[in-house]
């Protein structure tokens, strides 16, 4: 379920690493909008800039200074803000799901899920929390530490952590990369449900065409630019686009 409201927008986004002869252009003036409630997959060959684009959009990295550069989430201009302001914004508006799960190993599943709101100094909505935990099948595992959970369970905890605060956007970086097929499929379905039923906006970086097929839209990057956009993607259309991009 999508609507026409723009959740995330990027305009004239540049990112270069290194200087002089060793300079590498990761992003070459990207312009892209992401609608609220939309599930977008970002793909491309190695070095295409897909991870860099996600890092910059997620405020984990900063774009190069350019007079026309603009990065907005929920209408708030983020480019040029101080680190503390960006951090505060990220805390309140952005959720993350990582390939490596990145749960705090010394906290239980429950404590990991509640942590982002705790850092923000907010209390979780009890009903929403219980609902989420039930939907993600974590009710029996809340008191377990990550080392006591399977990969799929850990990723579901990460999804719960990302969804609990109802962020403006969730960034998922290869969320199925460390999972077996069954667990990966489960995770993708959950992300899909979050978009359909909760109106969550999700941006996912992946190299897996099967995973990309769960998205509403696929963006293919090459050499720091968007070279193709696929609406209602299938595995085959994604593969073809990737082949065309040289992945």
């Amino acid at each position, binding site marked *: 379920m999508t609507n026409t409201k723009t959740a995330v927008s990027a305009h004239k986004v540049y990112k270069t690493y290194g200087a002089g002869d060793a300079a590498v252009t990761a992003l070459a003036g990207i312009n892209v909008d992401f609608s609220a409630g939309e599930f977008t997959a970002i793909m491309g060959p190695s070095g295409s800039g897909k991870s860099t684009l996600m890092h910059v959009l997620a405020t984990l990295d900063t774009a190069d200074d350019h007079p026309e550069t603009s990065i907005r989430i929920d209408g708030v201009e983020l480019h040029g803000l101080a680190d503390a302001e960006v951090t505060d914004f*990220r*805390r309140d508006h952005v959720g993350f799901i990582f390939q490596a799960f990145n749960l705090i190993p010394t906290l239980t599943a429950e404590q990991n899920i509640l942590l982002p*709101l705790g850092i923000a100094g907010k*209390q979780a909505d009890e009903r929403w929390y219980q609902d989420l935990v039930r939907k993600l099948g974590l009710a029996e595992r809340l008191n377990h530490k990550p080392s006591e959970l399977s990969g799929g369970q850990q990723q579901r905890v990460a999804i719960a952590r990302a969804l609990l605060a109802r962020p403006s956007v969730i960034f998922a970086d290869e969320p199925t990369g460390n999972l077996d097929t069954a667990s990966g499929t489960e995770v993708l379905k959950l992300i899909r449900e979050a978009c359909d039923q909760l109106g969550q906006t999700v941006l996912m970086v992946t190299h897996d065409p099967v995973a990309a097929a769960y998205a509403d839209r696929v963006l293919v990057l090459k050499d720091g630019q968007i070279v193709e956009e696929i609406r209602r993607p299938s595995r085959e259309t994604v593969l073809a686009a990737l082949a065309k991009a040289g992945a």
Partner: protein
Amino acid sequence: MKTSTLKTVAHSHVTSQRKKFVLTSISIGVAAFFLAAVFLLTQTLTASFRAASEPLYSRADYVVNAPGSGLMLSAQQGSADQSATLTQQQVDALKNSSEVDIVGTRSLTYLGFTTDKTSSSESMRAEALPDSPDSFTYDFEGALPTNKNQVAIPSTMADKLGLSLGDSISVEGPAGQAADTENQAFTVSAVYSVDTTLSPDSMTFYFEPQVLDSLIPAAQNNSAELSNYEEVSVKLKDAAAGFPEDLKDKLSSGSADTQPVIVSSSEQVDLYVKQLSMGLDVLTYVLLTFAGIALVVATFVIANTFRVLTTLRVSELAMLRTLGAQRRQLTTMLLREALALGFFSSLVGVVLAFILAALAQLFVPRGIVIGFSPIAALVGIGVGILVTVASSLVPAVKAMKVSPLSALSTAQRAESEPAVSRPTMTAGALLLVAGAGLYVFAVVADRPFLVLIATFVLAIGALLLFPLLLWLLLKVLQRIARGSTVTLALNQAVNSMQRTASTGVIVFLSATLISGVLMGHSTGVASNAKMSETAYPVALNSPVFEEESEKGQHLEWSQIQQKEEELEGIDHVSSASLAAPAGVITEGFPEDQGQGPEVFAVDPEKISQTIAGLDQELTENTVLLPVAFDSSLDGKTVVISAGQHRVEATARVSEVGFYAPLISKNTAQPLLESADTQTTGYSAMVNTEPGLTSVEAQTVLEEVASATGADESKIFGGINDKLRNEQVMKIIVGVMLGLLSLATIIALIGVANTLSLSAFQRRRENAMLRSIGLSAKKLARLVALESLLIAAVSVICGIAAGIGLAMLGVQVLAVDGIDIVYAVNPFALLVVAVFGTGLAYLASLLPAKKASRVSPVTALAIS
């Protein structure tokens, strides 16, 4: 609804990572234990002093003090005139006052006494019983003296001398002086309870008041009006009204120097406690210095633990940043963990100190009161927390620099930081330069305290720069190393200099401290030996022929020569000269200097060989006077007499300080043949070869004592001085090494901790080595070898630094005018090198074994 915050993360870390924190906790706990123990000890002594002093004044309201009493002088409340006692008029005014209920006095009278139970004379303070038996504040067995032949003694003296009721003592007269009265015999009629030798009454014997006067010669009193009382305790009929003003007026002497000091009984106890505690400050400072050293070593251990753990948690910290934690929140979280660790670890240390103190109460002598002061707990825990938080500050601040992007990198971050950061290197270099400059100034300007400060500054500079030196030395070893395992171990060490430096600094610091103390000790012994040789004219001066002398026999010179030859036959004795009593200077000696001194006859040739540096030849018809005599006597004619026999001689004053005037045996012949010459007081002067060891010196002393038949305690000279000082130095160095052993234990814990954390940090590296074919056994050997190499280089550098710093530090004695003889004890330093390296190696074995157990597959898997 539950919450989960950064506090939750901090708490979960401290509890979940207990094993990683165990060794660090022990370091903090040991340091906190020692600190608390120091304060418990000082509080115990203070409490014991108070318990010892309070009974004295338990029935008094006020105490009137003589301005010149020791207590008033130490409290800086009295007069500078030490002879200012209370006058008899003042004491009588108190006794006769209608406002005073009871008066108790304390005198200044010290007397010698003997008993059947002891062979030598003992000292006591003689005191008159209070007028009223009610004001005798102690419990006692028997009955208080009721006649002039009875005495009440304290239980401390009864226990010490084995005295009991009915035993007798014989009072000799004022201690240290010949008695003017005949020895007086007293029977012990009462033994009163004194809990501890700390009590001022632990050697007070109570007599009937009239008896005291007969024991004190009239000549001892400066004035007929002066009493011998240094304080009078007063119980008032109406204490609530305060000390009566009219009585104060009566006590007023009109002179500031003799004005009595009136204080309340509680103030008096405070003054006593303060006086008894005066030496305590020095003890406290020394113990706190060693506690400080232990804390410094603990600081390195804690700092390293947090550095490693923070490095291991970069991903987690980055994750927290992605979830919206601000930089300062991460720093606060880490400091919170440090606070929790510091609190619980030091709490355990402090509790242990209190438990041991409670157990000690069961074994300490009666009268020692264990002072369970809350200050000990507060200091132990407070300092433990402070040190832990301060040590974790740098890693905590570094955590602020963690970027959220780090959460997304799954590659192991290589340690890229150099062994020594630029600021640390700069600080170290600046301290070395500043320390060197200050040192030169201090030596030139004769400022001993500045010498110590400069040495300390140089030591800190060296410590800061040591990791750089370690890196350089390991690089040199890398170039010359042969063998794949050694080369690989050195590569590992050089490529991870932060980890290497963490282990190395702790070993270096410990080796520096211990070898510095040992170097200081060996230099002290050598300097003392030289000082003893030069400060004394002879190595030993012993009474001789005491048995023969007692028979009243006059000795032939041949007997004297025989004894000289016997003494010269002792190993390491270079020469011996016997001195025979010849007579006394009766004419020619200035009258204002009192009676002329006794003169001794010697063989001139022998004496010039025996007295080191004798500047003048002892010629015939000359009496040689030591340097202590007035130089105006030089050249004067004096007469030496023994009964009716007289000999004239010319006085010569020497620059050397030998013990008595000397005359040639030939010149003294008429006196020696005289029946009036006294036959007691023969002495043997013995000189030895230079540079004797303590064992050789002790042997010479024993053999001289055996040859002369004298008790060793009656023999004096350079050797005694040397042996006595060496004994003191041995005790001091033993205590210092004992106290340093605490820091060494913490250091060993630190090494084990560093290696353990390092093994965890390097599990991927180790797994890689396993995966390319290194067996578990070889991997363990590699890790242990790496530790051995680091420890060996660090110990050797530490020994060199310890020697150097000690050599600089002992200059404080040279500034004081003492000749320094530098000496190294190679055996002791070898022991430090072997043990230091060995212990550090042993500390690495378990971590090495754990490191080798890592499964290549598990460790290489992306977690």
